[in-house]
């Protein structure tokens, strides 16, 4: 049963907060209400996406520079939902050919740094790396490592901003402020579809609170009658004029994967 009750909760909180503001002109209480509203929205977003267990998907990433030159990356990602913690992901690269079979294993956590290992096939070497530099670009793209770490509610403080229509869809606009260390962002603004509770657009603001990049999600498809997944996403960096385009293919929610498939043992055999 889809939970619609929280939308009413949000509306009620806002109504109460407006009354409060009118009567007492107490802005801190209003902020608290916005914060609570924002939290409720993102909690609902997370909750609606729970229960997928394990999945795998193919990803093609196109990196485009201001001159229009493109370079392509092809990878395959396996994901495991972990109860009470962040997701585990195993990413294996197919292209470019010189990094074929390079693999990246990540155990996401909420506020603790993620545990990450990289496997370098040329040396047959597995190395544990520091995840503190999560603001760095993933594979030279406009996506940062922190962007691909799994979304956990505890990672951010929230603030509901307003309602807005994006491409004909009514959305909540929520601001997220990272609580974890070493983030490259001061704040992140989400446009969340009021009906399906999925992000349609995300704006990122850098450490100087300057607008950095915008990400849009397109062609959402419903999987297993419950999970919405985009087929495409575009990230435009307005400071550098560079773009990254993502194409997901072959979503497999029936993947029979378990914990041992995400162990270090599997890194070197990963294909």
């Amino acid at each position, binding site marked *: 049963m889809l939970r619609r009750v929280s939308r009413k909760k949000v509306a009620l909180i806002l109504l109460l907060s407006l009354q409060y503001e009118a009567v007492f002109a107490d802005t801190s209480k209003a902020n608290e209400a916005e914060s609570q509203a924002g939290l409720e929205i993102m909690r609902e977003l997370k909750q609606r996406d729970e229960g997928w267990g394990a999945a795998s998907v193919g990803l093609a990433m196109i990196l485009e*520079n201001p001159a229009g030159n493109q*370079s392509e990356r092809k990878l395959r990602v396996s994901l495991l939902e972990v109860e009470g913690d962040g997701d585990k992901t195993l990413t294996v690269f197919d292209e470019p050919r*010189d990094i074929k079979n390079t693999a990246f294993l990540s155990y996401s956590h909420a506020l603790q740094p993620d545990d990450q290992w990289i496997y370098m096939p040329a040396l047959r*070497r597995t190395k544990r790396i*520091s995840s503190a530099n999560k603001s760095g670009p993933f594979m030279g793209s406009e996506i940062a490592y922190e962007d691909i770490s799994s979304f956990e509610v505890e990672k951010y403080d929230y603030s509901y901003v307003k309602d807005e229509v994006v491409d004909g869809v009514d959305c909540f606009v929520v601001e997220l402020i990272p609580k974890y260390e070493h983030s490259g962002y001061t704040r992140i603004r989400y446009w969340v579809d009021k009906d399906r509770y999925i992000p349609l657009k995300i704006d990122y603001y850098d450490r100087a609170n300057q607008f950095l990049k915008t990400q849009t999600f397109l062609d959402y498809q419903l999987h297993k009658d419950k999970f919405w997944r985009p087929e495409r996403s575009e990230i435009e960096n307005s400071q550098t004029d560079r773009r990254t385009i993502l194409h997901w293919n072959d979503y497999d929610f029936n993947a029979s994967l378990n914990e*041992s498939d995400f162990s270090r*043992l599997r890194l070197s055999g990963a294909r």
Partner: protein
Amino acid sequence: MKTGRLFAFLLLSTSSGATWSDTTASLSLQSRIFAHKEPGKGSTDRVDVALQLSLEGQPELGESSFLSYRLRYLQTEHSSRSHGDVEVLKYVRLGSNWELSFGIDRIFWGVTESQHLVDIINQDDLLDAFHGEEKLGQPMINYNYLTRFGVLESYILLAHREKEFLPERYRLSGHLVIDNENPRYESAAAEHRLGVALRWSHSVESWDFALSYFEGTARDPMLIADDGSDHLIPFYPVIEQTGVEAQLTLDSTLWKLEAIHLDSATESYRASVLGVEYAHIGAFDTDIGLGYIAEYHFDDRRDEYLSGFQNDIFVGIRLTHNNSASTEWLGGVMHDLDNKREVARLQFETRFNSYWNFSVDAWYFSKIDEHDLGGSYDFFDAYENDSYLQASLSRFF
């Protein structure tokens, strides 16, 4: 040559189409230029060129088994250096929490950057690279088991591979006259003596550590002067090596340790490497990543030794552009605290597009004023005139 036939066999067997997409082939043109002309020696070109071909793949054979292979072939101007090797050719069977493999494999153990102490399973391919980072394949039976408390690796090592030294007149040969044809073994079974290796590794929070054990014929021979011959004879003793690896990943800093204890009939020694690596991103307000590495090497066989790491410090910098070309620089200097020798290395690599890569590997060996070769031999002594730069252009298929 056996490797040539193996190449052909694999090409034919995979041409059925099913596994082509899984194969990566690469062709690399490597040209080297040496800083000094070597006085009074034979084949001492300042410039040489080589072509390296490699073929690798991991075709699936079914739901839970696959084949893995990696073959390399180096063709150089100087026939003694040209050679091929099957670095990996194994059949792997996967279970829910285990894997069993038969065949030839390359196994890497270790956490440090400037020396790989614990990494013992494979023999160095000195013909390919004098620094020992290229390895020869090792025939083995390997069983790995995943438990709640880490991964257990067990190996039965079939057959011992000799270290093949470059002829004395070659660049980067170390300039010792070594008789490759007549190695001697402590074991009566010679190269057929089986070896055993075990390793337990685990990851707990910010710690990654491993304990390992190896028993078998040594990979590094002792070079003994045989009376009546002007050559040095390689002698392979039977050894036992116990090793420890540990890494602590704290924020942006990695703390690393590798230590070994090696025992044989004639000697017993300990060696260790202690290191730290710090990385940060966003240098100069860009996406550039900078990493700083410092490692200290110690070996308690201070005097006579077939290696140069008795009391040395390594410092290095890694610079990653984080661009779409994956451009990366890695530079480092190894400083010997005893004889003040320095060995420096600079590596550079970048991608031109999906198919072409370019890399540079440059080495500098400092000259030291006084050294007494006598009965002892410091690994880097003989490289003084061999500082060089290698540029490689690679095409991937």
